[in-house]
């Protein structure tokens, strides 16, 4: 069942505002098992219903976990309260926390990372699209479900919309996905690309990985070092921002060229030297992966159901 999620995932949603409600409806429609909501003073009362689905809503994470054995949490709480929500999940020992929220202060994330160290929790995000696993109908995020298709390629990206872009190309090229993880665009996040690559590397359901990075920081160099050292599956990589001007922050808090190491060229060179196949154009991620899979004898045409 690939990485992070599986058919035993019991999802809890924290932050049932309008957007949280819209998104959890789409996850329910996708077939994701949602067992609890957490929203102090929730206007809808003590439960949330959509179509023929329903789950109880609690004022605290601790109570939700106790009552429902939720083991994965998705956070839509607005930025000023997002770090507090993550800390609440860490305190409740939720194994997997996914935080979608954009605009979390970096000093808050310093506190979160300190709390994560030595805890029982893993964090994906913040400022990310979340995780989706087509084969288990598990959508823990904000993805447009239609472009995804079950298959054997993993996707890890800092950018959310580039996950969709890459997956759309993969699906059009007849390549399905095992799990797609958006790690988030902020300077401080939970698991970074390298950690996700490690998970894919030991995942029997993943035969190859698309890695999408961007300018700024050193995360792609760390990923390259891991690929060189340990990766035994092909990696196709694209780095966004090759044409971005230096010194300007490109939307993502992480996306600013602060020195030589932060440039797309430096990252591409590191990944290429580590053996990753580079897609120079973001429009060629799908076709590049198709070629790589065929060369490796791992291309699986879409199933008989198609």
């Amino acid at each position: 069942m690939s990485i992070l999620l599986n058919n035993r995932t019991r999802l809890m949603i924290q932050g049932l505002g309008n957007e949280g409600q819209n998104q959890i409806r789409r996850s329910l429609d996708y077939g994701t098992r949602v067992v609890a909501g957490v929203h102090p003073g929730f206007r809808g009362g003590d439960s949330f219903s959509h179509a023929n689905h329903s789950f109880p809503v609690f004022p605290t994470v601790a109570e939700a976990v106790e009552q429902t054995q939720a083991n994965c949490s998705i956070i839509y709480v607005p930025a000023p309260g997002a770090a507090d929500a993550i800390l609440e999940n860490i305190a409740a020992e939720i194994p997997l926390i996914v935080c979608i929220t954009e605009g979390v202060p970096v000093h808050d994330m310093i506190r979160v990372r300190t709390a994560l160290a030595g805890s029982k929790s893993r964090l994906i995000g913040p400022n990310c699209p979340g995780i989706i696993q087509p084969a288990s109908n598990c959508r823990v995020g904000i993805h447009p479900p239609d472009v995804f298709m079950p298959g054997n390629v993993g996707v890890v990206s800092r950018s959310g919309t580039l996950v969709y872009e890459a997956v759309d190309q993969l699906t059009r090229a007849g390549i399905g996905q095992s799990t797609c993880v958006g790690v988030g665009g902020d300077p401080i996040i939970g698991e970074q690309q390298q950690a996700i690559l490690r998970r894919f590397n030991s995942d029997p359901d993943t035969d190859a990985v698309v890695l999408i990075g961007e300018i700024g920081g050193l995360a792609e160099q760390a990923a390259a070092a891991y690929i060189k050292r340990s990766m035994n599956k092909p990696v196709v990589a694209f780095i966004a921002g090759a044409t971005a001007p230096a010194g300007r922050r490109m939307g993502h808090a992480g996306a600013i060229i602060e020195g030589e190491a932060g440039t797309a060229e430096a990252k591409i060179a590191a990944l290429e030297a580590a053996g990753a196949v580079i897609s120079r154009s973001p429009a060629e991620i799908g076709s590049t992966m198709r070629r790589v899979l065929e060369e490796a004898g791992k291309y699986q045409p879409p199933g008989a159901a198609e």
Partner: protein
Amino acid sequence: MNIHEYQAKQLFKARGVPVPDGGAATTEREARELLKEHGPDVVIKAQVHAGGRGKGRVVKRDRASRTYNDLRRDPERHEGQIVGRRRGGVRLASGVEEALKEFRPLMDKDSRLVSVQTGADGVTISAVLIEKQTSIVREYYFSIQVDGANGQPLIVASAEGGQSIEEVNRTNPGAVLRVPVDPVEGFPAFRGRSLANQLGLPSSAIRQAGDMFANLYRVFSEMDASLVEVNPFVLTSEGAVMAIDGKVGLDDNASFRHGGYEAWRDRSQENPTEIEAEEANIGSYIKLDGNIGCVVNGAGLAMATMDTLKLHGGEPANFLDIGTVNRKDRVVEALRIIVNDPDVKTIFINIFGGLARVDIVAEGVVDAVNELNIQQPLVVRLNGSNVEEGRRVLHDSGIAVETADELGDAAALAVEAANSGRRRSRSNN
């Protein structure tokens, strides 16, 4: 968000970090007061957000572009001449009259400071910092930034200050100290004293330097800063330490805790179109040099869109991440800003809906075409959430747009339209 040096020094001073006596002036009267109080020997520093001030030049507006091109060709051209020839953004002077002679051209409304980082128009000078000169024995470097990989603050320090730390790191990496900060402990004075000792400061200055470092860490944490940099702090001939420069970057995401950072913000240092974009709340906008106006959702896709245009031989006129669009009037506002940019010859809309809904974007595009007098060709690529409805909205409206389903095809269309220099046709037929 960046703030001015004089503001950084106010933050320093309020927390016990020693800075030279002085203050900021915008008028000759204020300058005269400061000169009387802190003269006769003073440093005069133009206050701008752009970097490269020391190696830049202060010129009349109509010479800005020529100076910029000169500097771009040879960034070191004016190094070492600045102070002596009184042309740059940092000047020395003795006595009130001489100092005012230096002050006046800086605050002249026709003056622009041009450096390799300002762009061809240069920037206006917001204020002039006038400070007592310091007698310097040695220059050091100190900064606190966020180390994303480790999720901790990182202190970088060097006994080779007063120059580019990147350059020191390249030529003499052993001279650059890196001290990770345990965020629970913070950076207490004893850690500061240990760092001061490692930097080779004399024993008599170690207590004061340790306090200075600890207090700079307070600035970092109390202000929600993303960067605190002092290059250089110095050892004076009296044996004291002092921060003679100061740079502070504030985390925009934390502005809700600090009244929007309004007291520290200087809009005159920002690009007017970027301010307009911010006030219209259309997302993250950055003006660039090309002629293809871009409207994209998501920072990563917006960068990738720019990259794709370049690969097809095009040049983006802007970066724009409109974020999650769930209101069509935001699309109209975004297009209003793009359309009014005189550099824009073609508009490229690339939306991959996740949280954002593509049909709402399409309705916004139709409204914009009807409300705004759009002369430029419009290339639209839609995908993701509610894409079928979105494409139908565009089709049924009958507005003249060129569309493509895939990113590469759409980018090629946009580049072709921009290079052909044609105008938008009036209808689909």
